[in-house]
Structure formats: structure tokens, C-alpha cells
């Protein structure tokens, strides 16, 4: 009789096999998968390059600015970069489907560029990184943030120092 109850249950619930190659696969939301990079939020501190155990992340200085490259074929999905990133510029998505043919091997890279800009105050060429103003008190307004961002690191420090803080 046990057989009959199992048979009835299997008829009701259907197969337990994952449908994947022929249907969608179950993916947990917090699965550690492919890395994405948001150049707008990057501070340029390069901590991710330093903590990456497999050296999958490389920064390079070019005439246009600083480039970011994360090689998915070297990344071990440990999540150190996301954990240490101070500005949430680097994220792990739950995309695990990275199987590719040999011809696509060297396209498996997440590329980003932090462009150069001219400082609005002194005219020096500097990277347009996100400013490190997490601990500024009181928090910067949006216009202040844009003004800080348009400056070079030295002028940024000067701007933050001379900022009027209501006591």
C-alpha cells in the first residue's frame, strides 16, 4: 500500500528533476555569481584589486582615465571585493550561467572606465571618481556632491575644509 501512496503523491507533485536545460532553473537571490561594476560609484581606492585572491581584478591607467577589468574566467566568486568596497561600486549578481565556447574565452570580462576630467578650480587633470564623503557631517547635499566631484583631490580637500558647517 506504501507503493500506491507514493505513486499517488508522485502523480500529484510531478517530477523532482530540475527543468534546467529545457526550462528555467531555480536560482537563490543571494547566490554569489558574476560580478558587475558601476564606474559612477567607484572611489578609485583599488581595495578590490588588493583583496582579490585570484587576481581577477586589474586596474590600469590609460590616457582616457583608469580602466577596471574583472576576468570572469579567473574570479572565484568569493565576494571579498563586494565586502570591502566602501561605495558599493562592485556587486555580485546571481547570474551563474557562464558556460561559453573557447572562441568567447577572452570576451568574458567586466570592463569599466573611470574617465579623466579637468578640475573646475585649478584646471588640473584628475580622475572623475566618486568623492570619499561618507563621514562628512552634515551629509553633503546633491549640489555640493556635484561640486566636490568636479574637483581634483587637492581641491576636494580644500572645498571640504572651507565648507560652512552650521554649528
Amino acid at each position, binding site marked *: 500500500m506504501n507503493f500506491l501512496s507514493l505513486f499517488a503523491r508522485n502523480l500529484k507533485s510531478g517530477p523532482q*528533476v530540475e527543468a534546467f536545460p529545457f526550462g528555467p532553473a531555480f536560482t537563490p537571490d543571494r547566490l554569489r555569481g558574476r560580478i558587475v561594476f558601476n564606474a559612477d560609484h567607484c572611489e578609485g581606492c583599488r581595495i578590490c584589486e588588493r583583496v582579490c585572491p585570484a587576481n581577477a581584478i586589474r586596474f590600469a591607467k590609460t590616457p582616457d582615465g583608469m580602466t577596471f577589468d574583472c576576468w570572469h574566467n579567473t*574570479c*572565484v566568486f568569493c565576494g571579498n571585493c563586494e565586502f570591502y568596497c566602501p561605495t558599493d561600486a562592485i556587486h555580485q549578481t546571481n547570474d551563474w550561467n*557562464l558556460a561559453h*565556447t*573557447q572562441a568567447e574565452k577572452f570576451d568574458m570580462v567586466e570592463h569599466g572606465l573611470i574617465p579623466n576630467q579637468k578640475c573646475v578650480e585649478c584646471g588640473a587633470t584628475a580622475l572623475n571618481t566618486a568623492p570619499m564623503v561618507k563621514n562628512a557631517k552634515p551629509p553633503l547635499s546633491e549640489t555640493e556632491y556635484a561640486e566636490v566631484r568636479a574637483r581634483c583631490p587637492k581641491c576636494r580637500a580644500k572645498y571640504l575644509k572651507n565648507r560652512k558647517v552650521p554649528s
Partner: protein
Amino acid sequence: MGLIPDFKKIATRSPWLYRINAGSCNGCDVEMAVTALIPRYDVERLGCQYCGSPKHADIVLISGPLTVRVKDAVLRLYDEIPDPKVTVAVGVCPISGGIFRESYAVLAPIDQYIPVDVNVPGCPPRPQAIIAGVAKAIDIWRERL
């Protein structure tokens, strides 16, 4: 007589898988065993089956960064597999070396020694990703037949 070639075309559509451990940490090997053995991620739906002998294999799954010590054995095993064969590099190690890259004991990437057709990155890859890689390998294998 025309029927027999047609029949052969239908009959040769079940590639057999073979696993080579080229100095892997066993993480990818466990995942590969999981794709085949447990009913939840059934790789036999694609017509594949694991076999114990390289002489019966059609698709080779290689894991591990090809350590210096195991290199000769892997190349000898690989030569024993009859053509046409399709090679799938499973895990980050055979593709680029992963965390073992640039070590003196490791000869990664493996495509310097063995022609690789499909790469499945991950440390280890999910069972579904390995199945996706095997599905890609089957397409390549059918073209080569």
C-alpha cells in the same frame, strides 16, 4: 540501402562522458558527480552517461589546473580517447589557473596542452552550469560527427 545511413545518424546521438582530474581540489569533481548521479540534476536526460574507460568516451570533462606531477598521465589519457572528442574545461582552474595561477607546480591554463572546446567557469560551477556546458559540447560534438 538509404535507410542504413539515416539509421546511423539517429543511432549516434548519445555521447558518453569521461572525467579527468588534472590535479583538482575535488570541488569540481563533486559537482560533476552531482550533475550525473542524483536525479535532481539529471544529465542523462541529454543522452549522456558517465563511462569508466577513456576508450568509450566522447566528451571529456577536465577539472583542475594540470599540476606538473599529473601532466604526463593526463596527456596519455587524453590521447587514448578516440576522435571525434569534445573537451570541456570545468572550473576556473583549467581555464586560467584561478587562485593557483603562476604557481611553480601548476601548468594552467590547460589549453596550452589540450585543445579545449567549452569552458565552464566557477569555483566550483553550479551543477546547472555544468549541464549547460555539456549541452554546448553536445552541439559541437554533433557537428564534428
